[in-house]
């Protein structure tokens, strides 16, 4: 217990100066009352800085070279697009690293949108709708189902992703019936997988799923 002669208070803890007036204390220094918690050091910051510098300078250099050689076509657009997609995916994964299901759901949605855009940029051949979306949806549905079973995740944690799963099932069906798809096999396969998993989920978890919907959408 030590004493501050300026404030006339006793001071507990391991202080050498008075917390109120910063004058030196008189008397014995006691034990610490609070743990010393080091300030957070952002350990990955350097890697991110290097990545940012590399991708930024790479993009700028490509655009520069492309401008010098205009006869080579607008290829730098693809480089810039690739860099943007790369960063969206990286940031999304880091932000959702605690939640695998959310991460998968987000990746499928964002990559699908990016690939549709890329398909459009290259000159529409329809490969994003024919192949990428049905295949990634199938993979997402299967991996969500497997992760949920293996990790024994309770309904309230995965319910919202099952609802997203239903969406994965609906989107290819919509594409199929609007005639946007020229190669039907991947889409039909995706539809079969998603309909079967949805039916199984509804049979086994229907009540829980309904409760989940009531909870998530209460006003």
């Amino acid at each position: 217990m030590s004493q501050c002669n300026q404030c006339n208070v006793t001071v507990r803890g391991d202080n050498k100066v008075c917390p109120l007036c910063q004058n030196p204390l008189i008397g014995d220094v006691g034990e610490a009352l609070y743990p010393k918690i080091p300030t957070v050091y952002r350990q990955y910051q350097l890697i991110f800085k290097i990545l940012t510098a590399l991708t930024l300078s790479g993009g700028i250099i490509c655009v520069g070279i492309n401008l010098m050689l205009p006869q080579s076509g607008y290829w730098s657009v693809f480089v810039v697009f690739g860099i943007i997609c790369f960063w969206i995916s990286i940031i999304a994964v880091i932000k959702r690293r605690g939640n695998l299901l959310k991460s998968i759901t987000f990746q499928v949605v964002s990559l699908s949108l990016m690939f549709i855009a890329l398909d459009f940029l290259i000159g529409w051949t329809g490969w994003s709708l024919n192949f990428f979306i049905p295949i990634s949806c199938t993979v997402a549905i299967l991996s969500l189902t497997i992760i949920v079973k293996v990790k024994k995740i309770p309904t309230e944690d995965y319910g919202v992703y099952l609802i997203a799963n239903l969406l994965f099932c609906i989107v290819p069906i919509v594409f199929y019936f609007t005639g946007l798809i020229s190669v039907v096999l991947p889409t039909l396969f995706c539809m079969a997988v998603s309909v079967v998993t949805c039916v199984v989920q509804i049979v086994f978890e229907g009540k829980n799923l309904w409760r989940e919907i009531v909870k998530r959408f209460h006003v």
Partner: protein
Amino acid sequence: MRTKQWIRLDNAAKIFPAAAYGSDTQVFRLSCELTEPVNAHILQQALNETAAMFPVYQCVMRRGLFWYYLDSTDLKPVVREEYKPPCSAIYCKSNKGLLYEVTYFKNRVNLEMFHVIADGKGAAVFLTALITKYLTLAHGVSAPSLFINASHTQMSNDSFATYYDDKNHSKAVPRPNSYKIKGAKVAENRLKLITGHVPVDQVLRIAKGYGATITVFLCACLIKAIGSNMSVRAKRKPVVIAIPVNLRSFFPSLTARNFFGLVHVEYDFSTESGTLEDIIQKIGKQLKEGLEPERLYSDLNRFSALEHNVFARIVPLPVKNIVMRTAYLLSRRKVTAALSNIGIINVSFGTDYIRSFDVCSATDSMQVCVCSFENCLSISFTSRFISADIQQYFFRMLVQMGIAVEISSNNVENE
């Protein structure tokens, strides 16, 4: 399989997730210092038993499309040695955990709670139950009958909803912007915590001498301390102190969740004399008016009406968060500091093993939390600012009145 319960956030809790930002994490800490070092193993056992008595706190917060909600969970609370600064954030979007935490450091047991699940009164019941359990286990005493005077459903009752009457609410009285404390801030959104222990009888005697309650007396001292650090130009704006009021004392309720209202008292140094007597007299009158049950009731109804508004309800949560955060920040411009007195803490067993109880809360500027145990009145300042001049003026004032003050601090600037 047990079907899990879910509950809506109560009226007061609805603002907290949107308001939690930076240092203002909406987390408060209640701690109890024992006379002996804490045994982590026994504390864990005591916590397991206490947690079973309070199922209302065994929940995680989730996001719906329109509102957050509390979902009961099987997660078990785990005792840890104190590992982060006081009142750090508890709720994390990507990692859904319990909304309270029990930690210990040397002789002290800390209970930190996200304000969404409880207010200070609810937390005090939980902590005293935990401490009683711990002490009976640690000292091999047959447990005294430890019971909570409320059923599980009474504890999880949303008392705002119980008392809400949509036909009876007044219009909000617009208040002017208040003086805001300014200064260099502590790094990393940490809070400077300075706690002063003073004898209850000495403070009570002096407060009585002024004809005031302890809350009014301490609030007046706080206003005077803030006033002493104001520039002449800053004094044109009033100093406004927000005082949370436990509504359980006005409207019978056994809830362990939030049930409090806010009363604001203000003092204008540019027009008033600024003496302690004058401050006590002015704010004592304001607090008395604010505590009239009709006034508290119409405030309760006004806030509940916002929540029940159809248009407010159908706005999606992300938009709601932005709107509520903006509203919260605007309301903060009208408050200088907050003073929260959670009152006397009673334990049924083991007063000899307990040194003190303390309470403190996260804040975006300055907050004073007060509680008392036996003859020890604990006054904790949490502050965003490096400067401790207001705290110094406040405690020196008490010393000059002949009160013995004992200071402790988390020494945030040394880290």
